[in-house]
């Protein structure tokens, strides 16, 4: 895979600076309608919108799906897959195993392509059957680009591999698509200059200073460490050692801290003001007291990537493209608990009833809602709800009142749980569910006498699997004199830093925001560098990296062990 990456970049680099200058001179300004008579009278923004709808959603301006033929004889519709599935949203292309899908963005198409060094004999021998041999071609023009999409024949006369579908488009639709490609990732994104890449991080609301430091200090350290290596990379560039791999790392990173004050409804305008003052390429990390929603909306509406904020309140939405969350937050616990009950029908108890208890603020309502919705989805009965006002006293005899044989889901924190009176299994609930996310470090708030019938959602890596990574992260913090004021938060920043190092390397010169996310999406799963989760996984459009949650039981005593009763991911 490495060789493939390198080869592609070698090729695109050979295109050289001279060509780039020519390109800049010859290319019409993005957004112009190119005087194509077929597009006469259409506003450039409208052409882009229609083109984007073809490229990303496979939908023609008429609303019908795009039609094409793949592999020579397989008819396909835009409802199955689209250009973006193969060339990615940014158009910079994709690499999966042995298959390289080349760039189809304006900057690359409208300049000549030279494959550069051919494979060595040995590489040729090992080359698997479906590997596509790159070939030279001159720069595309509007006409030759339209031609290749329909016929598969490029301006050099080469026939493209049949994996690239041949598209059946009316002349006007084809002209729209060509216009779109020409402007797709044609200019570098805001926040990118010759020397630097500008980022921001966000501290919103009345965040606990310890948590703020736990996020900010490791992030600043990552950036400082990286910038300290810039001279080294530049040196290598001059001497030619790993010149191509290092070529892009020379850009310095800058980090602005956007402090948002006041109530969350005022955050949006503060964000806009910061952005106007200094546009950034992306937001890294960040922490908020309260909902991430205002920041989520700002990032999605302005197309600004926001990478792995530290939040318990991610926005769960299918349309989210720009915010890459670490997890689905508390909802993941409710969903997993419901699936667990569905799998373990034996736990349902004689009464056949489920009751859930939670306070009307904090994580409780989020878990409760996800639990209820998932139960319904799985065809189970909805739970009875007992909602306690925040701050109001909790009826310690609550469980007695439910009667025996029920399933009691107690989405409560450790203080509340510790105050409760638990009957034994004969007169009390058949099964108790609790939230590891809410109990935090105090899982032992679950009394010994009910531990055998209690199952706790645990959306984290198990303590017994944390040791090695724990050692690495705490050592790193200690060496850099960063107090472990909140290890969970700092460890997430550490994991993000190690991913960013890879992502920057693979991005090369393509500083487009969509490509930044595309590269994150093409990452391999992360395990070793991640302290809090057994696995973070990625994929185009996957926006919640940690996707699992154990259900665990506790052994007896004040320092119980966690015994997993499910896999990390259980369907």
């Amino acid at each position, binding site marked *: 895979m490495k060789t493939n990456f390198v080869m592609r970049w070698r090729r695109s680099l050979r295109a050289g600076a001279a060509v780039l200058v020519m390109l800049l001179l010859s290319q019409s300004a993005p957004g112009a309608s190119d005087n194509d008579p077929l597009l006469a009278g259409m506003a450039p923004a409208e052409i882009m919108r229609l083109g984007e709808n073809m490229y990303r959603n496979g939908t023609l301006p008429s609303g019908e799906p795009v039609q094409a033929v793949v592999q020579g004889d397989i008819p396909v519709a835009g409802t199955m897959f689209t250009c973006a599935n193969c060339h990615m949203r940014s158009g910079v292309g994709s690499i999966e*195993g042995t298959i390289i899908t080349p760039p189809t963005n304006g900057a690359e198409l409208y300049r000549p392509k030279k494959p550069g060094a051919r494979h060595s004999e040995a590489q040729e021998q090992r080359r698997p059957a479906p590997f596509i041999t790159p070939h030279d071609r001159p720069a595309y023009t509007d006409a030759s680009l339209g*031609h290749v999409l329909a016929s598969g024949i490029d301006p050099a006369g080469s026939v493209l591999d049949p994996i690239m579908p041949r598209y059946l488009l009316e002349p006007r639709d084809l002209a729209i698509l060509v216009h779109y490609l020409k402007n797709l990732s044609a200019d570098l994104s805001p926040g990118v200059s010759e020397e630097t890449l500008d980022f921001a991080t966000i501290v919103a609301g009345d965040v606990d200073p310890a948590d703020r430091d736990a996020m900010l200090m490791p992030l600043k350290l990552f950036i400082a460490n990286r910038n300290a290596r810039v001279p080294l990379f530049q040196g290598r560039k001059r001497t030619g050692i790993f010149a191509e791999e290092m070529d892009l790392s020379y850009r310095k990173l800058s980090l602005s801290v956007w402090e948002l004050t006041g109530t969350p409804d005022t955050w949006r305008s503060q964000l806009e003001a910061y952005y106007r003052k200094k546009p950034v390429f992306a937001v890294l990390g960040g922490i908020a007291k309260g909902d991430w929603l205002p920041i989520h909306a700002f990032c999605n509406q302005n197309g600004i990537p926001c990478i792995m904020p530290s939040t318990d309140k991610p926005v769960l939405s299918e349309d989210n493209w720009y915010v890459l969350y670490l997890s689905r937050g508390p909802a993941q616990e409710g969903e997993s608990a419901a699936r667990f009950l569905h799998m373990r029908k034996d736990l349902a108890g004689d009464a056949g009833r489920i009751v859930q208890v939670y306070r009307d603020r904090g994580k409780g309502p989020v878990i409760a809602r996800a639990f209820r919705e998932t139960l319904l989805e799985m065809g189970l009965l909805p739970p009875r709800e007992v909602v306690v006002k925040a701050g109001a006293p909790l009826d310690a005899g609550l469980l007695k009142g439910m009667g025996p044989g029920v399933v009691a889901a107690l989405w409560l924190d450790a203080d509340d749980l510790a105050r409760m009176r638990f009957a034994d299994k004969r007169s009390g609930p058949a099964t108790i569910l609790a939230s590891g996310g809410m109990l935090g470090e105090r899982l032992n708030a679950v009394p010994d006498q009910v531990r055998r019938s209690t199952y706790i959602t645990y959306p984290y890596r198990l303590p017994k699997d944390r040791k090695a990574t724990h050692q690495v992260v705490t050592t790193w913090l200690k060496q850099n004199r960063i107090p472990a004021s909140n290890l969970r938060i700092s460890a997430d920043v550490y994991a993000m830093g190690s991913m960013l190092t890879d992502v920057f390397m693979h991005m090369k010169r393509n500083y487009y925001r969509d490509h930044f996310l595309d590269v994150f999406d093409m990452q391999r799963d992360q395990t070793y560098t991640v302290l809090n989760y057994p696995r973070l996984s990625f994929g185009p459009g996957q926006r919640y990296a940690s996707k699992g949650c154990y259900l665990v039981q506790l052994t007896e005593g004040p320092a119980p062990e966690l015994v997993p009763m499910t896999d990390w991911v259980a369907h």
Partner: protein
Amino acid sequence: MKRTPFAVIFSLTLLLVVGPAPASAASSANYKRTMERYSVPDVTLVNQDGKRVRLLDLVDGGKPVVLDFIYGTCTTICPVLSANFTNFQRKLGEGVGKVQLVSISIDPENDTPMVMKKYLKNYLARPGWDFLTGSREDIDRVMRAFSAYVPNKMSHYPIMFLRAPRGDQWVRIYGLIGTKDFLAEYEKVARP
């Protein structure tokens, strides 16, 4: 001036649809075919309806079987593999129920029954095409059994397997093929 090339292109596209197969049609040389013996592990996976399915029951159900490894957000490889399944089912027409198609997720974390159901719907899948997810451990066992193990989904490669009912040999197809080759391979398996 500008209109001419587009007119030419449009007739070219028409040619592609109604005319003889153009030079670009998939040629058999594009894939590698071998015969293999595999022993399918006894694992229970979860299908697009959230139902538990014993893999052995599915592949030993007395029908010819076609099996591949895909995932919902995969680029380039899976779209082509799956479009192939779609068109194959369409060519089978009435006989679609006579063949069992099995797609096994190599991204079990993200491929929930809901994701898989939507995927099959997008590909106009008909009954007889099942998409299976499960625990990573079980999925790894299946990949290993078919000599198709990848530690990471991004190292995925295009591969597909066919087997006669109750046969003990699998045809392993490495590479991406078109419907003509697919049907030819299927005929060899179904009517040896």
